[in-house]
């Protein structure tokens, strides 16, 4: 580069910035230098500097260079070889949003808008929600204020790319001297260059997801060890035991029960001590799974490894246990050939007021939370008798003891629970059906008794509307999630939360317990699902892959898999131990409101706003990796859609498999 040119640049720069003094001294210096005729800086030897100067000269043209630079890069990558194209196209999105934000940050609002609207179509399919949020950013102040934009600015995107594509890209950038783009790429993209062939298109679910926290942190979290196995000595175990001594089952039952009582007491004492320390000492229980899987058993659930509970768990009353065992004995085995019967509960005349609904474990009670702050509970057994139908009789006998309708039952078909002062967003039945929890926009959670038809406790702790509340699989404990971005663990007997799980970057929209009660999963508007250790309150997994708000969660009965459904109708199956997506399930066209695994984990049911219930075969995928655990690379086995059951015009709000594997669905008739 000619030295004179450089001198001119420097002069122009100083003049433009108004550094009069500096300019003068620079000139003096220059003259001195000329007199000594020796250049103090070797421009040619320092490409970085020349690049900087170059970029400065380009800056003269102002915001247009972003537009030009990006459109050139875009046309180049679209015309590149098909083999590498999809990898190169991945680079475009981060470059696009950072170009846009750079423009905004520099105050070129108009140009930023134009730029955004010109190229937004390219990314709409993949990143519609993000684009909608970014669209409103119209001033530098907004970038600072808006968390999403802020976190984008301050974190790097990870892109996996093969060596050759990477070289191609660098070559292109150098050749065209598009330093603006190069700068953006350097600043905001972290390339993970891998040797060899470019990876397949389907492999990149998380390749270009932009999240607030850095990907590294997420990866690090996902390294943590978790014990996804089931609780030791679960009812299913006992059933098997009882089954082996079928002749004198009564006796054995009694014995095991007594043994349990003692054990539970012991556990309650030790509860505090057990926890983080004991967890460390344990080996990954998944290793045991293969060993145990040798046992020839029909039930997939029983193959899961066993873990010790970290919480002190409630003691189950004997008669309840008896009825549950009875149910387990009578359970229908479901698989891709033997599909469940589905009973659909339809709410009518809700006048658009129903926000949520929930079905008790035996399907006999149905609760609806309304936007007029009320909670209504229907006793289907009673309703059924009135209508003369004996539809639910089979299920009813199990829970007949706890069904007494209130004083006002004569006039109304339901029991009305009033107490909240804002729309009720969620309701949950305890496993025995004695209690209902409801959460509301008034920031409280209330506990109701279905026996007394009264409000027992009001739990205050959240500062914003509580979106979701769920009882733990064994009752007593429950988890809540809120607009205040936290999820909390409570026990029924305390009005203060026991744990607060903080970490999500946006509302926590849904919460679900792991089958062994040691973990909870939360889904959030930040498009991630997280798994938290209940005992320590730590985040142990981050699942990245959804493209919109996560609305529903379900954990498989063997505790190994989790399904999550989002606003776009996509369902993702996650392997908890690896933290990776097994496979996405596409099919719904609108929000997936509810998910449920069948009791032995072979079927997944999903209910959606598109007025359908879909049944998915999840056995094909979950069984195979277990036998060849080490070889499985994740998504060889695609889960498949078994059946779509359209309702007439009823978006399905809630799903529940009863213990006997009858599927209940609930929704509101909407026209």
């Amino acid at each position, binding site marked *: 580069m000619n030295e004179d040119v450089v001198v001119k640049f420097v002069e122009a720069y100083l003049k433009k910035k108004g550094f009069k003094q500096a300019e003068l001294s620079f000139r003096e210096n220059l003259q001195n230098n000329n007199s000594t005729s020796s250049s103090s800086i070797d421009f040619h030897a320092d490409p970085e500097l020349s690049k900087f100067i170059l970029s400065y000269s380009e800056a003269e043209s102002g915001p247009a260079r972003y537009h030009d630079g990006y459109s050139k890069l875009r046309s180049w990558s679209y015309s590149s070889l098909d083999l590498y194209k999809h990898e190169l196209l991945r680079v475009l999105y981060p470059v696009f949003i950072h170009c846009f934000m750079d423009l905004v940050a520099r105050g070129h609002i108009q140009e930023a808008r134009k730029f955004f609207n010109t190229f937004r179509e390219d990314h709409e399919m993949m990143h519609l929600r993000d684009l909608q949020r970014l669209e409103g950013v119209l001033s530098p102040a907004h970038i600072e204020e808006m968390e999403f934009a802020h976190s984008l600015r301050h974190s790097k995107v990870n892109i996996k790319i093969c060596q050759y594509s990477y070289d191609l890209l660098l070559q292109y950038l150098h050749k065209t001297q598009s330093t603006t783009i190069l700068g953006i790429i350097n600043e905001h993209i972290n390339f993970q260059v891998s040797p060899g062939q470019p990876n397949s298109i389907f492999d990149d679910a998380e390749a270009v997801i932009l999240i607030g926290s850095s990907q590294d942190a997420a990866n690090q979290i996902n390294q943590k060890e978790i014990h996804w196995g089931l609780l030791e000595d679960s009812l299913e175990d006992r059933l098997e035991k009882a089954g082996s001594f079928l002749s004198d089952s009564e006796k054995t039952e009694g014995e095991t029960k007594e043994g349990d009582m003692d054990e539970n007491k012991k556990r309650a004492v030790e509860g505090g001590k057990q926890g983080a320390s004991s967890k460390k000492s344990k080996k990954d229980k998944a290793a045991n799974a293969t060993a145990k899987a040798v046992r020839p058993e029909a039930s997939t659930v029983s193959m899961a490894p066993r873990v010790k509970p970290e919480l002190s768990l409630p003691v189950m009353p004997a008669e309840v246990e008896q009825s549950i065992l009875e149910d387990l004995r009578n359970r229908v085995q479901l698989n891709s050939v033997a599909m469940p019967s589905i009973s659909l*509960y339809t709410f009518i005349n809700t006048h658009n007021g129903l926000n949520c609904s929930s079905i008790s474990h035996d399907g006999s009670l149905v609760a609806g939370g309304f936007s007029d702050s009320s909670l209504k509970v229907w006793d289907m057994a009673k*309703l059924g008798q009135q209508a003369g139908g004996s539809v639910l009789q089979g299920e009813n006998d199990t829970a007949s003891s706890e069904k007494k309708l209130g004083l006002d039952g004569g006039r109304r078909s*339901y029991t009305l629970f009033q107490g909240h002062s804002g*729309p009720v967003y969620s309701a949950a039945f305890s496993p025995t059906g004695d209690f209902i929890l409801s959460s509301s*926009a008034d920031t409280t959670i209330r506990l109701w008794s279905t026996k007394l038809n009264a409000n027992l406790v009001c739990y205050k702790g959240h500062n914003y509307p509580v979106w979701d509340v769920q009882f733990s699989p064994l009752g007593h404990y429950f988890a809540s999630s809120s607009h205040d971005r936290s999820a909390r663990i409570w026990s029924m007997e305390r009005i203060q939360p026991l744990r607060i799980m903080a970490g999500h970057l946006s509302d926590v929209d849904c919460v679900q317990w792991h089958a062994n009660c040691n973990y909870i999963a939360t889904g959030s508007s930040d498009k991630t699902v997280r798994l938290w250790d209940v005992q320590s309150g730590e985040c142990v997994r981050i699942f990245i892959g959804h493209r919109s708000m996560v609305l529903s969660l379900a954990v498989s009965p063997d505790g190994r898999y989790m399904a999550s459904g989002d606003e776009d109708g996509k369902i993702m199956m996650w392997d908890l131990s690896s933290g990776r997506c097994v496979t996405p399930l596409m099919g719904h066209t609108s929000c997936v409101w509810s998910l449920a695994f069948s009791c032995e984990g072979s079927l997944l049911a999903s209910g959606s706003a598109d007025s359908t219930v879909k049944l998915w075969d999840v056995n094909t995928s979950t069984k195979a990796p277990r036998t060849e655990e080490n070889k499985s690379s994740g998504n060889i086995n695609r889960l498949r859609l078994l059946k779509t059951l359209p309702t007439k015009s009823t978006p399905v709000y809630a799903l529940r498999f009863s213990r006997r594997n009858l599927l209940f669905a609930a929704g*509101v008739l909407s026209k």
Partner: protein
Amino acid sequence: MSIVPKETIEVISQSIGITNLSSEVAGALAPDVEYRVREIMQEAIKCMRHSRRTTLTADDVDSALKLRNVEPIYGFASGDPLRFKRAAGHKDFFYIADKDVEFKDVIEAPLPKAPLDTSLTAHWLAIEGVQPAIPENALVEVPTDGKKSEYKEDGLAIDIKLPIKHVLSKELQLYFDKIMEVTVKRSDSVLFKQALVSLSSDSGLHPLVPYFTCFIADEVAQNLSNFSLLFALMRVARSLLQNPHIHIEPYLHQLMPSVITCLVAKRLGNRFSDNHWELRNFAANLLALVCKRFGHVYHNLQSRVTRTLLHAFLDPTKALSQHYGAIQGLAALGPSVVRLLILPNLEPYLQLLEPDMLLENQKNEMRRHEAQRVHGALMHAAGLCMYDRLKAVPGLLSLPTRVVWKRNGKVVTTMQNKRKASMDNLMQQPPLKKLATDGMGVTPMNSMPVEMQGPTAGYTSAVGGSSVGGTSLSRQLPNEKMSGREVGSRVSKTSTILAQAWKEDIDAGHLLAALFEHFGESMFSFTPKSESSLFL
């Protein structure tokens, strides 16, 4: 640049009493306003999702505002759509029209009906993975699937209520009463149309079918003078027939007389303005639909129908409107029926009809009009028949004479002959008799009145049996010279079977010519394009 224009900010500032807002301030505020509005809408969408809805309401926006600790905007809670009105004198300035309501009116207004209380119903969405075809469930798209589940349901119903007399659910009873009421009283309303759609598509109506057929039969019998009711009933019948979920065959015998009544009754409706022709057309189509759908199940269905219609057609004592109905009915059953039953009788019938059509002879306007109608129907039927023939034998006119086709014509012809022989009342009329008896000979050639007729034929002597190397007919004038005599001599040499096949083709030719004679130029509209050009 932002969606909110500066002017909006100015207008808002004026509305809250700030008159001297500088334009820079407005310009700076505009993007910020847009940003805030977007923020609030995003929160509102969250609230919407948590209310399990897919449409945003004013309530959602209110709760989003509450989340931000902003006072909600009151006054938009009602579910009615807001009516914006343009402010006079401004191009794009709108306000919400708030109607003044007299307080007195509000107080004195009768209480509105109390809204129905929320309730819960249960039904089976699926039984072991199969959706039962009950009214609560959505329609199953695949027809075979629907059939299967229907059978299943039938079986189920039998299982449950074995010895009980047929029991109708309350809903079905209500439904039936409603449909009856709508059909009888308000058959021109939108509701009736919806009822028809429901009848033609709902899956759970099977228990009602006997009631509907009975209802239709009774009403038709009692209300022959009520035109609109008859039409409505026919529509109901059609909807029922169209419903793929209904097993209607066992009730057809009840339904058919009503339909045929609507087709060939002497008087339908009591007013001059009633367009009973239309009703007859409708009934004819309905009849054709039934015959097509159930003809193979009910083997004597079509023959019974045609016999009834033919009786009506051939009885000169019957009214012209009845003739019309019979012709339409026969025509709707297909061209072959027309060819076999109408065409042979065409000539004498037209002779009969002619005096009524002429202005001089028939002074009764009404009668003349009817006659013209019947003539039109005949022409239509014959024309369609001919069209069909020409289509089926595309080379009839265009191919060179020596081309040989394979056709299997024997069966039809013999049947035709038998049928003719069996119909004794045809015999009264001499030309018919001739047609019926001349099946074997060359005579039709000579009796053909049209000189255009120049049939030529190419036989392949190698063919035998029933697959006859048929004849090709041409009426191209150049071929006329290959005279009928030559053909005739050949015919006499070949077997009688061949002769019969031959005769059938001659019939086709005859048909064309005869039709031309009877209807003249108007027949051209029924000939397929390419052929008609050759024809001319």
